[in-house]
């Protein structure tokens, strides 16, 4: 199948190169005239073609003697070369060639060959499709996909004109420049328009698919060297959640909703054409504190990020396009420009944004006594104990600290005529607001391009990243500093009298853990590629690229015997390593052709291979020789030593045809065929086609609304896939284990040889509108995504010995809309710009196996059922506290007189109805003020922390909310009575713990000042900018927990919107400067 298709495609391309659609390619003329009158040349041409010459004898001297020799050349080239050399102007109208008066005396001058490249002025982006011509003549051409052009011009002509819609025309003196660089600047003030799309560039005016694009200065508004944080609220269609305040922690990113239940919902991340690993290599389980592939990337070297959203944009990524694609393009130098040097620095302090108000010692002891009495027992603390107690520890205050955060970066960029470069180095250091946690990261990058010859260009992009993250155990253990700092009773001191840590409490001393538990991740990463760009012919280019993503990930933890967890094992140490290498080899052929300057066609085909190999080890040892020795060499008992390898391979064929008529009617067809090692031979290959059309209504002659500058409507439809399941599910296997020091084997699974890709069909309708000289710009999209063949564990009767079999069952859909609105409100001395992004996504599971729900997932007891969004909260409905008993009354939903599992219902939905951001930027003289707000509406949060700290049972301290608890009949309150035994199970999973998590956050306020005086000029600085900034300043919300944006399970697909003693986020106050030479 594959061979045939490729051969067919190749044949089509090569044939295309010879197709006749345009006069200049049609005829192949040969002329051999020695010292004959010009008239004979004209006749010869007329003979060999079906054109006739029209001229006035008084103007043109056709009797003059000329010589001309040419073999197999096209008519237009002959006309260009010969007639223009004689300064005879010609015009072609239908089948007539009209000759006009020459300007000077007849003399033969060789035409000049001019070539060059056209780029945007502001960011040096190559511009395809630019008109390059000599004013008033037909002499001209169009720039190619990579912005280059070549043209033959008669020597007498001096000026060359460049024009492109939306940009100011440039006229350039040709002089002696063989290789010119032209920079076009936009016509009106707007966001830059050349956009990186899958395997190419596109002018945003001509975009016919749905993408969101953001350029470097907008990315860096809040100066967070953290990609997800700097995108949140600025792009439509991508939901980003911070999850926790862990330094270097993973964020959740979802493009247009969740389209899979088990096979991964993260987008595909690509940097400079190389796909990245997007897994967490931690083997020591940390929930909300895990990392993901974007954690290592700094925003400093990013030029632009494009989010591909609809099927047409993503189908070229085939089997990985279902969850959307994020294309990251890094900065590159400019040819023929002096070296610019830029230095940025930022220093800030962080403070925990919100803590829980817990009972103090006296309140705690009183509550404990009351609970004991309510259970029929006796008070635990005596009156005198309560009154004479002088230990009242506020554990949270002891644990959190004011922590600095700093970032410095330096970059050089510039270029000669043939070479350009961009070099950068940056350093980020973030201490955590929780003692004992911190993160530092060093990023370096070298981007080089070299035009070796006219046809061959080579280049590289190489990043080397190093980071270290000191973590502390999170919420799922009894040895986490944050959970213990919240829950430990205040009746224990931090230190004993002799200065050692006090560990008498029911939970381990969090300060002791924070300062003694060692847990470091060492991460080293190389992301790079090498490419060659070879022009096979004028219209056909071949690009070969090799790229890698290499990660060396190591974890080292140690619990000394002096800390409680370590004491249990007499010292516990774990070492893990993961070495991961992803290699991509890509071959792309790109063909460009324009006809009559009306029809533009671009054809792209390619073949790619991608391989992944991950080698991991895991070692654990206990009983250390001394508390100061932290490496396993000092561990007496090596209780675990494992090593394992995972591999994956994929090969793909891809193709795209783009058609553009008069820059008014646009269309695209994409297709990709992917083969993956994850599936059996039955289903190894998947085919993913898509297409789009767009109509620039505003360019039509009938369009007469002057206040509308641009109006484009577009539609797309297509199919993409998702393959992120574990390897080898399609065969049945035996695993290995041990018993009594001998080896054992056992069946792991039942095979399913019919496993195949998850498939998403997506439809998109979009609108791009610009009004009032582009002062209002609106992009709106509506989409429907239906995913079927979800790779789900189909539950089978557990009595079979297996819980499930992986099968393609299940359907899920996402329907939503996105609105991006940018307005320039005031454009005088004071400039005020606003950007508003709103996205809305409704997710619904539409089919499960036998419509059986999957329930009780995670600490939020979340549920997947048909007809509801994925991961809804499901439980009992609390009707409040019964004033006569102090217990909670639960709704008897089926009215059968008993409260049991049949009385549960949907009690919440963690997904927001709307989310987005609102940025306002005000500039006056040298000052600039930016206020950035983010919002989310309709998302519920399950506060599982309250299930412990408001439970009034067990060992935990309680929040001050329990001071309002029910104490005697007649009390009206929403906190039930204190009881350890809790026979009514007031503490069960119910709407009592579901809260509205809607929020509006003041994400950042930044005031900057541009210093522009003699001092600056004397130092040769082109820019000197100072700023102060506050981030995470305030959150407007009804949520009672630490942060409504919380998720204890990190970037998990199903377990979302749940708080469980999660590391809280911080407010940051910072200041910094930018210097440019």
């Amino acid at each position: 199948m594959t061979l045939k298709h490729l051969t067919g495609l190749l044949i089509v391309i090569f044939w295309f190169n010879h197709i006749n659609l345009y006069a200049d390619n049609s005829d192949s003329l040969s002329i051999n005239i020695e010292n004959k009158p010009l008239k004979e040349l004209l006749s010869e041409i007329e003979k060999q073609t079906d054109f006739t010459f029209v001229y006035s004898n008084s103007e043109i001297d056709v009797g003059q003697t000329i010589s001309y020799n040419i073999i197999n050349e096209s008519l237009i080239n002959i006309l260009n070369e010969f007639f223009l050399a004689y300064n005879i102007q010609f015009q072609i109208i239908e089948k007539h060639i009209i000759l006009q008066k020459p300007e000077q005396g007849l003399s033969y001058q060789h035409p000049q060959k001019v070539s060059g490249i056209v780029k945007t002025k502001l960011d040096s982006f190559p511009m395809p499709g630019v008109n390059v011509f000599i004013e008033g003549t037909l002499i001209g051409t169009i720039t190619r996909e990579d912005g280059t052009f070549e043209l033959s011009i008669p020597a007498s002509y001096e000026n060359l004109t460049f024009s492109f819609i939306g940009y100011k025309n440039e006229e350039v003196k040709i002089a002696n420049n063989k290789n010119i660089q032209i920079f076009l600047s936009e016509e009106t003030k707007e966001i830059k328009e050349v956009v990186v799309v899958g395997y190419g560039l596109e002018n945003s005016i001509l975009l016919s698919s749905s993408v969101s694009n953001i350029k470097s200065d907008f990315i860096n508004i809040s100066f967070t060297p953290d990609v997800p944080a700097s995108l949140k609220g600025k792009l439509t269609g991508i939901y980003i959640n911070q999850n926790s305040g862990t330094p270097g922690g993973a964020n959740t990113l979802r493009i247009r909703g969740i389209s899979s239940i088990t096979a991964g919902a993260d987008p595909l991340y690509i940097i400079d054409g190389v796909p990245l690993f997007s897994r967490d290599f931690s083997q020591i389980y940390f929930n909300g504190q895990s990392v993901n592939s974007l954690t290592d990337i700094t925003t400093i070297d990013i030029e632009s990020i494009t989010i591909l959203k609809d099927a047409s944009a993503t189908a070229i990524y085939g089997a990985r396009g279902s969850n959307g694609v994020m294309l990251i393009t890094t900065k590159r130098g400019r040819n023929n420009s002096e070296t610019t040097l830029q230095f940025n620095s930022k220093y800030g302090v962080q403070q925990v944004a919100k803590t829980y108000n817990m009972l103090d010692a006296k309140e705690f002891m009183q509550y404990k006594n009351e609970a004991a009495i309510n259970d029929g027992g006796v008070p635990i603390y005596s009156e005198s104990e309560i009154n004479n107690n002088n230990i009242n520890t506020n554990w949270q205050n002891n644990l959190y600290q004011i922590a600095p955060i700093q970032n410095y970066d330096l970059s050089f960029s510039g270029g000669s005529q043939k070479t350009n470069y961009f070099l950068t180095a940056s350093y980020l250091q973030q201490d955590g607001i929780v003692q004992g946690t911190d993160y530092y990261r060093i990023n370096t990058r070298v981007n080089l391009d070299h035009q070796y010859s006219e046809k061959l260009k080579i280049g590289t992009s190489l990043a080397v990243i190093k980071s270290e993250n000191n973590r502390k155990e999170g919420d799922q253990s009894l040895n986490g500093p944050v959970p213990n700092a919240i829950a430990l009773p205040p009746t224990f001191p931090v230190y004993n009298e002799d200065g050692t840590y006090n560990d008498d409490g029911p939970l381990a001393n969090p300060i002791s853990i924070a300062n003694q538990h060692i847990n470091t991740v060492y991460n080293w990463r190389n992301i790079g590629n090498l490419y060659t760009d070879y022009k096979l012919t004028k219209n056909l280019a071949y690009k070969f690229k090799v790229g890698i993503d290499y990660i060396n990930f190591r974890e080292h933890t140690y619990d000394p015997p002096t800390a409680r967890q370590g004491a249990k094992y007499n010292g516990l140490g774990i070492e893990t390593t993961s070495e991961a290498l992803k290699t991509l080899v890509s071959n792309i052929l790109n063909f460009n052709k324009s006809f009559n300057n009306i029809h533009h066609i671009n054809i792209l085909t390619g073949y790619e291979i991608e391989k992944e190999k991950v080698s991991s080890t895991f070692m654990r040892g206990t009983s250390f020789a001394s508390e100061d020795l932290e490496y396993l060499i000092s561990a007496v008992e090596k209780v675990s030593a494992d090593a394992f390898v995972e591999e994956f391979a994929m090969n793909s064929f891809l193709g795209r045809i783009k058609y553009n008529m008069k820059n008014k009617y646009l269309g695209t067809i994409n297709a990709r065929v992917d083969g993956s090692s994850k599936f059996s031979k039955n289903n190894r290959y998947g085919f993913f086609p898509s297409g789009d059309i767009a109509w620039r209504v505003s360019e039509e002659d009938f369009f007469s609304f002057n206040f509308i500058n641009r109006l484009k409507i577009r539609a797309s439809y297509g199919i993409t896939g998702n393959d992120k399941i574990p390897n080898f599910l399609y065969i049945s296997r035996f695993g290995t284990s041990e018993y009594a020091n001998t080896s054992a084997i056992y069946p792991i699974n039942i095979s399913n040889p019919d496993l195949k890709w998850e498939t998403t069909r997506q439809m998109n309708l979009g609108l791009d509108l610009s009004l009032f000289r582009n002062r209002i710009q609106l992009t709106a999209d509506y989409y429907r995504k239906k995913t079927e063949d979800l790779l789900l564990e189909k539950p089978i009767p557990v009595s079979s010995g297996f819980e499930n079999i992986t099968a393609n069952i299940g359907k899920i859909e996402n329907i939503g809309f996105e609105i991006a609105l940018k307005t320039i409100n005031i454009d005088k001395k004071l400039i005020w710009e606003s950007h508003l992004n709103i996205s809305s996504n409704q997710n619904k599971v539409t089919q499960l196996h036998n419509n059986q729900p999957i329930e009780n997932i995670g600490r939020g007891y979340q549920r997947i059922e048909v007809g509801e969004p994925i991961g809804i909260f499901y439980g009992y409905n609390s009707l409040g506290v019964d004033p006569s008993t102090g217990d909670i009354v639960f709704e008897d939903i089926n009215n059968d007189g008993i409260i049991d599992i049949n009385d549960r219902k949907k009690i919440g939905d963690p997904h927001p109805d709307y989310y987005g951001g609102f940025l306002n930027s005000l500039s006056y003289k040298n000052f600039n003020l930016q206020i950035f707000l983010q919002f989310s509406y309709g998302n519920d949060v399950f506060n599982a922390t309250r299930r412990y700290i408001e439970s009034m049972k067990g060992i935990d301290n309680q929040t001050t909310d329990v001071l309002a608890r029910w104490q005697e009949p007649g009390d009206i309150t929403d906190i039930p009575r204190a009881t350890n035994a809790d026979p009514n199970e007031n503490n069960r999973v119910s709407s009592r713990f579901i809260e509205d998590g809607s929020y509006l956050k003041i994400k950042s306020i930044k005031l900057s000042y541009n210093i522009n005086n003699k001092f600056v000029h004397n130092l040769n600085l082109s820019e000197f900018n100072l700023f102060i900034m506050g981030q995470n300043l305030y959150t407007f919300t009804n949520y009672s927990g630490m942060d409504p944006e919380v998720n204890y399970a990190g970037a998990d697909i199903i377990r979302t919107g749940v708080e469980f003693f999660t590391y809280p986020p911080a407010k940051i106050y910072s200041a910094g400067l930018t210097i440019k030479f």
Partner: protein
Amino acid sequence: MKPTVIFFILIFILTSCKELLDLETTDSINSENAIETEIDLQKAIRGCYDALQADNYYGRMLIVANEIGSDNAYNGGTILEFAQFNNNNVQEDNLYIEGMWFTPYVAINRCNTSIYYALRMKNLTEDKKNEYLAELYFLRALNYFNLSRLFKNIPLILEPTFSDNNLNVGLSDQNVIFEQILSDLAFADNKINNNDPYFASDLAVKTLLAKVNLEIEDYIQAIKYADHILTSNKKLLDKYESLFTIPKNTESIFELSYTELLSDRNRLAEYCLPTSLGGRYEIAPEKSLLESFEPNDTRKNLFLGEIPYCNKYSNITSGDDNVYIFRLAELYLLRAEARAKINGNLSLIRNDINKIRNRAGLTSIYSNSYSELLQIIETERRHEFAFEGHRRFDLIRTDRATDILGISENNYYFPIPLAEINSNSEID
């Protein structure tokens, strides 16, 4: 010219990459090749023992259900679902119930799979084949015995699961299950030659036969098997405490081995020890249990601390405390109970009881009343096997659960977990 060259290069790349996508597994074995030789079969049988070690089985939940689910212990830690066991109010959606249902069926499937391959294995003598089968039938019977005591009526599955066809098996009555158990054990009887208490032995088979017969009230048979075991070379240890410090001792008939390897350990010590010692104190002894011990009872010494905790499983660092499946002491009390139920010889009954009492440092009893003797046996069982996963089963077997625990007969058995009900069309 150039385009044609590239054309051919590309074709070359294409054809040479067919093997790209055919990768091999690196950490597991394709089941087509897994059990081919006798050594493979032995490993598969050990996989059946491995299944017993699960946290939701002998590694934790059998003990939690029997101790927290009776008057021996309460939920003293942070696991909220254990409260349902304490309150005798376990719901169908309790995650631990699902585990307690699933893990024995995993073990049963491993047994069925190994039986399947054993029956078809070539180059195996008839004797050797029968010995392996005996071991597998015994293990299967043990699993069904546990399941039926927990859930009463359960699906009876005797074939391995190789595909997802025909998996909807309905419930069989408890007596049908017991018939199958007895049939499996009848085959296994007198066939196993091994003496290592970490693995099945003939004494283990006979112990299970004794227990099953006691359960179905066939007291004569129960006594017969108990006699056989109590005249073997197994001996009670002198000191009760030694039971929990000496592995593979003379009293141990069938003991589940755990080692400190991360994949081979249990968390019982973690669940029993208090937080001050690094544990979670999830299974906390009831004050009433400790108060019920007579003053000199050495078995009380296994409960330590001002806020008492059970110290039978104490290797919290290495997690390698072994778990008794059968030990000799049980047979004495079993025989005494069976005799008392058929109004048998009083002095023989008293002898058996006093063997256990004396070993625990208590004086002998002299009662002549069968009902009193049964009462004493019940108490001795409670004290002898506290925190070893017997109490609730014993109270239900002797129909005393209502009196002691206050539960109705509907609550004797745990509900079939929601996961099974939702996925099995034959069960609702």
